[in-house]
């Protein structure tokens, strides 16, 4: 098991390095700069000041030199200084990490709590009304633009019914989390429902289940023991993959609900050309994705002993 872990972590490193390099190059050729973004609403920036800012941020040095410095610094955990706040990027990110995690986990929870049972029930009664309705609902959930859904939720539940607050983080409590979590969670919910249904169906018709049935095992035991354990593999994989990419997908929802997470930080930083912050955020997203994937792989091995890596 340890060997597998080491191998997986080892696989992460070159990917991470390539991502860092790619992102660095991409954002060094982007037009517009931080300084020109400061003149918002027509307040002109003084050219001499802009030039000094350029020097201060090291943007006048050649590309290769900057990259080497950046890569070297990243290795020791120094992600640079944000152009906007003049503080370390790590600090900027640390302040926004928890809200993002919270939102992603809440969305995943919503997806799992509703999606998995839904898929399960649909699989146990294939072709029934429940099955049809849930699957149509699932496909619809996958076809909705996230922010349109978020907007509808906001106006219906916040403005019309006044049950929930419409924006922001609040004091970190549950009420502010609900609407964004639903908006973000509908898509993985739909996917999980479909995947669970398919996985369960697959297993229900597999040979060893028929064997168990013919042996006279009660339906309930059949379902709970064999089906769940085998369907679990696919479900866990899906949960993992979804979770890994969910943080990146949360960008739009965060922007809509003014949720102070990494996604909205990233978008703001891109528009304001705060390059170190952009690079830092993307790094975190990628790291998150890779770590979750590795954990999923390990869980895969743990759940299904038949799968071993040579």
């Amino acid at each position, binding site marked *: 098991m340890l060997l597998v872990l080491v191998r997986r972590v080892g696989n992460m490193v070159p990917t991470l390095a390539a991502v860092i390099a790619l992102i660095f190059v991409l954002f060094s050729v982007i*037009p*517009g*700069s*931080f*300084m*020109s*973004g*400061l*003149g*918002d*609403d*027509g*307040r*002109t*920036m*003084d*050219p*001499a*000041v*802009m*030039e*000094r*800012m*350029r*020097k*201060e941020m090291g943007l006048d040095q050649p590309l290769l030199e900057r990259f080497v410095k950046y890569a070297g610094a990243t290795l020791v955990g120094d992600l640079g200084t944000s152009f*906007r*706040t*003049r*503080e370390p990027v790590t*600090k*900027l990110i640390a*302040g*926004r990490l928890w*809200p993002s995690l919270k939102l992603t986990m809440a969305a995943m929870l919503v997806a799992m709590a509703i999606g998995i049972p839904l898929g399960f029930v649909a699989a146990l009664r294939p072709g029934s009304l429940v099955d049809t309705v849930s699957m149509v609902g699932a496909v619809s959930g996958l076809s909705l633009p996230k922010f349109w859904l978020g*907007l509808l939720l*906001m*106006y219906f539940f*916040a*403005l019309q019914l*006044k049950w929930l*607050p*419409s*924006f*922001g*983080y609040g004091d970190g409590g549950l009420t502010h989390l609900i609407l964004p979590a639903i908006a973000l969670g509908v898509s993985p919910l739909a996917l999980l429902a479909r995947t669970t249904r398919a996985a369960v169906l697959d297993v229900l018709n597999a040979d060893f289940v028929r064997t168990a049935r013919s042996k006279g095992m009660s339906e309930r035991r059949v379902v709970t023991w064999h089906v769940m354990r085998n369907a679990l593999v696919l479900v866990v994989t899906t949960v993992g993959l979804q979770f890994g990419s969910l943080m990146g997908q949360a960008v739009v929802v965060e*922007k*809509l*609900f*003014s949720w*102070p*997470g990494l996604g*909205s*930080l990233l*978008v*703001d930083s891109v*528009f*304001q*050309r705060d390059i170190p912050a952009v690079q830092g955020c993307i790094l975190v997203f990628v790291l998150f994705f890779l770590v979750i994937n590795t954990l999923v792989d390990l869980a895969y091995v743990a759940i299904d002993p038949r799968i071993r890596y040579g």
Partner: protein
Amino acid sequence: MKKLMWLTAVAVAVVGFGAAEAQQTPQTQTPRKGGTVRMTAPYGGSLTSLDIHTSPRAQDDIAGKILHRTLYNWDSAKAQPALELAKEVAVSGDGMVYTYKLLDNAYFHNGRRMTADDIIWSYTRIMDPTKGFPGARYVRFIKGAVDVEKGAAKEISGLRKIDDFTVEMTLAERVNPGLLFFVGVTAILPKEEVEKGNFNSNPVGLGPFKFVEHVPGSRLVTERWEKFYKPGKPYADKVIVLIMGEAAARDVAFRNKEIDTSILGPVQYVAYMADPVLSKGILEVAEMFTRSMVMNQASIKPFQDKRVRQAINHAIDAELIVKRLAKDKAYRAASWLPSSSPAFDKAMKPYAFDPEKAKKLLAEAGYPNGFEFEWTTSPNESWGLPIVEAVLPMLNRVGIKAKPKLIETTVLTETAMKGTFEAYIGSNVTGPDSLATLKCFHSKTPRTACNYTAFNNAEFDKTLDAAGQAADPEKQLELIRTANAILYDEAPVWFFNYNKAVMAYQPWLHGLQANPTELAHQYPEELWVDERSPVK
């Protein structure tokens, strides 16, 4: 008998006066001490920095006005700058030397008293040659500041400490320092706190409220600074700034009474004005921004002809756009200077909507079938893409084919400074210093500074130079007015509008100032909430 009549008269007068005052009571309430004011920061998703020297953004100065202080404040009632950190100022005969007698009871939030050293240190820091502090463009007007900026001197020679509470400032050019040093980026900061290195997380200033916590992207919490130098102020116990960049989200929050102020966008402006309850709590101010389509005379030939530029002004029904698209949340522009400028000529009429005249002018200039041009724009809803989309059909009708080119706002500024555009639509600050504003059209002003139209008119230059020299303020105003009129005739831009800032406020909030430099910049020591505030 006479005595009785006299007493009766007095009694009647007192009663009458008392009755009158009772009717007036709603307006003359005494400010209540206590409570929490919940403001909003509407210009983006975050506050970039609490070290106000580093950021010129309007968003950050909302916090700047709460935590920090500048030498002057903007007096909205008198429409001019007013001394804030000084008791009095003596001006030399030639208007170049200002001697300030500073307040001796101004304390930083760490308990230390402000002295002349702080003024000098702050302004010197701003001229640091290794950093790009936006305030440099203002402090540069002090004699010797340029040397510090170039690295040739360590101190500003024009700033002299006379004693702990007296500082003498010698200017390099004759300007009104009030117009320079009320701007947030010239705030007076405490050296020892800044040098600790974590000033952005622990800002310490002279403002009426001191820092409690900042949740990035969400809110800033501050509480009353007991040692603030204005007696009895601030009234509120706490001021919270909620960061909400989306107008629609602010709308919902305001209606739910979760926030006390909200800058309104055009859509909400209409809705709130139509609502019998909400319309009572609306503050409107004519701000000092001019929105226009800038035509680059160094790009395509048609723009070099005055008649073409005038034709464009006649072809577009700006009135309709202001009414329908901007929902009347703007004032039709006549020339470059906004209506809030003292030099604004109220008799000046904006260009009339006259497509026939436009076609005639175009034909005269040699373009009877119109021409094409590329129109660069940002996505901005007030002076960007939506305006362009509304104008396209209007220009089309007189034969001018405009091709929109959408770019991001950061790229827009770069494009303007580099001159890589034919026409672009944008917003420009046009106040409070009208003379400085018009300098942008002086032929000697480089494009990178702000002469984006490549404007070059000898008569204009002459008039503006004379205005700069004029010692008599009335004469100066007259000359500025004349220069503005020349701009009207030459039409270097399509004059679109001056903006109207609108803020909705809850009925329990009092003390808001109609600040034309930026409505969202409120001096919080004047704000107070009565018992109806839902936050105890």
